[in-house]
């Protein structure tokens, strides 16, 4: 039984050993062999993700990040929050019950790069948007242990003191457009203004944000300071949109009833 099963393997291997024996005398043959052998897997797994249509759901209400939210996302990356927080609720009962509807591919469609994460030292953040108040987020970032005594999360008090840079936002949105995020010329041209406007509900720039990104966009003094635009504004704006770019997950996955 074993012998018969083995035969094809042994034959393939004998061929392989012979070929290899010839190959190992030529560095370029070895090079070609390695590239070939190591090329197949990646190609077969990655290329179809672009060609199979139901890889990413088609959703009409999916919106892009506003400049302020994108700036916040860049800060999230800069600070390495992804080292402790995932943004990917898996298709497992306990995760859905704890964090909400499992994440869909479309929800990170405009995420360059994705921030699904690989370690949950802190909780998943895929649906943290609107879970807490702006004020809570600010205080939590200033010192997490003020609110959650057992927390091991670092303090980020300096964000509240650091003015947000806005002059580079048009360039950032433009680069994102080049990699496929549908920002319009209008959005790019007004990126800096919109970042300012979104954090100043009473200011005259606020209405432009709603025009360009939709009436449902949150326009608030995220960091609690109406007169300053800080990195805290951006990061909190980003945290508050997590899970809220589209409602498709909530609409297609009924809540676990208890």
């Amino acid at each position, binding site marked *: 039984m074993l012998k018969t099963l083995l035969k094809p393997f042994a034959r393939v*291997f004998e061929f392989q050993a012979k070929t290899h024996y010839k190959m190992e005398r030529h560095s370029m043959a070895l090079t070609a062999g390695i590239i070939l052998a*190591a090329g197949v897997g990646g190609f077969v797994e990655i290329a179809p993700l672009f060609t199979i249509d139901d890889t990413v759901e088609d959703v009409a209400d999916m919106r892009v990040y506003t400049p302020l939210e994108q700036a916040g996302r860049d800060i999230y990356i800069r600070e390495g929050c992804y080292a402790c927080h995932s943004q990917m609720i898996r298709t497992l009962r306990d995760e859905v019950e704890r964090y909400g509807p499992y994440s*869909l*591919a479309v929800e990170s469609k405009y995420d360059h790069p994705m921030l699904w994460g690989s370690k949950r030292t802190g909780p998943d953040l895929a649906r943290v948007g609107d879970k807490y108040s702006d004020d809570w987020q600010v205080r939590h970032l200033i010192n997490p242990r003020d609110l959650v005594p057992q927390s091991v999360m670092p303090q980020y008090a300096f964000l509240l003191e650091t003015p947000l840079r806005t002059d580079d936002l048009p360039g950032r949105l433009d*680069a994102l457009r080049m990699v496929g*995020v549908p920002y319009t010329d209008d959005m790019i041209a007004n990126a800096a203004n919109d970042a300012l406007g979104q954090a100043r509900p009473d200011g005259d720039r606020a209405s432009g944000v709603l025009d360009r990104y939709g009436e449902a966009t949150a326009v608030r003094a995220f960091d609690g300071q109406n007169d300053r635009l800080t990195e805290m504004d951006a990061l909190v704006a980003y945290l508050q949109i997590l899970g809220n770019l589209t409602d498709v997950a909530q609409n297609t996955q009924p809540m676990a009833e208890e």
Partner: protein
Amino acid sequence: MMSNLTSTERARAMLITGAGVLIGLTMAAVGRNDPMGAHGWIVLLFCGVLFFIVGQKLYDAEPVEDRSVSYYDDPTKIGILLALFWAVVAMGMGVWVASQLAWPDLRFDAAWSSFGRIRPVHTSGVIFGFGGNALIATSFHIMQRTSRARMPDQVSPWFVLLGFNLFCVVAASGYLIGITQSKEYAEPEWYADLWLVIVWVVYFVLYIRTLARRNEPHIYVANWYYLSFILVVAILHVVNNLAIPASFSGAKSYSAFSGVQDAMVQWWYGHNAVAFFLTTGFLGMLYYFLPKRAGRPIYSYRLSILSFWGIVFFYIWVGSHHLHYTALPQWVQTLGVTFSVMLLVPSWASAGNALMTLNGAWHKVRDDATLRFMMVAAVFYGLSTFEGSFMAIRPVNALSHYTDWTVGHVHSGAMGWVAMITFGSIYALTPVLWRRETMYSWKAVEWHFWLALSGTVIYVFAMWNSGITQGLMWRTYTESGTLRFSFVDTLIAMHPYYIARAFGGLLFFTGACICFWNVVMTIRRVPHHTPAIDYPTTSEAMEPAVPAAE
């Protein structure tokens, strides 16, 4: 060392470092309103110092040595010292990172010292700084010895080694300043990525040119592995780092891929950084230093073939096991599981090949801590690949993913395998390279061995406990069928394990410091000794027909 370079070589080196200075200056000027400007100054300083060092010796006498009768070992020596330097820095960082999870306020009141910024300094520092330098250095040594040929020139090895270290410095300093792409193990920004491509191409060309000069018809196994490390890392690096900079005067760039495709590309890269950086490269090391130290022939050439091609082919498919149950389509996950399981056989075949090679040399393993490092490394390699294949099975991964179990697995591979084989190789290599009789202190090697082993065991056990506890707590249900624990409950349960891990890490780190000290003392204090034969010779090998199976 400079005196071994001809004046043309020195001039060329000045040209290259001079160009580096200009690049640094340009970056500093263009990026003055951006964190990239700081990188400009760092590049400027790095290349400036080298420029100055070479410049001082520019008009020294021409070397008189006959290059055809020796190997070129200067870059290897510096590479080993750099590897040890990075080991101390990055493992020290590891201890700090670990301590922050146990005592979160153990940091300065400054942005750069937060967990999220120093963690990648640790990971990149150990993988690239420590591991990368060790790989480059040992590959220089091994390719020359097993080819019985000297490297073709004397500038490109320096370019590779120092260029790579420039990349490491830019990477590590970048995280502290806040420059990162967030892609695990590929965090450096676009200009660092581009620079690494150049370094890597030169590395490949150097490797191939040396192999081309060999005096042995066949290429030894270690070189197959090093070659696969160089080639595949190049492919992975280029694809995963495709990105559009937001501006050429700033550090920020955006990945060409997004969402699910980006996740797949990232873990195709991430897993194979493990495979082709942390595995095949170090297998190359193992395949040279272990038989050499044990004085035994490799157990089976056929097994080498089987495991080499098995590893190269199967590994590439398994990246999707990092994305089980996620928004990645399930078909990719199935491929990830099945190939991970099939991969176990070639992995164990290579570990087994190493251990069987020790047959007839077990008494040496008992007496010689250096060989014991290598033996233990092979065992941990076997353990972590078994664990990896196990964790790749979807229901197991449902438990282990996102928890410290992964971190435990990582360190059984990284400390138990990668670091142990490197330390073993360094102890074997140091006396040969510097032409010394022996290591300065064998007692210290013995101490290092036990510190490393106990540190690893404490670390890994702590993380297994913590990971499995946390994974189970996340999914514990009450008799009512509702979740039992809140997230914070699990955080409290982790605390003692985090302390234990920091302690285990401290032991391991202490061992690394001892190693550095021992190597330095060997260079400074141990008497000179010329080995019987360590220079290029012609081969006496016959060309047998295809060796028949027995």
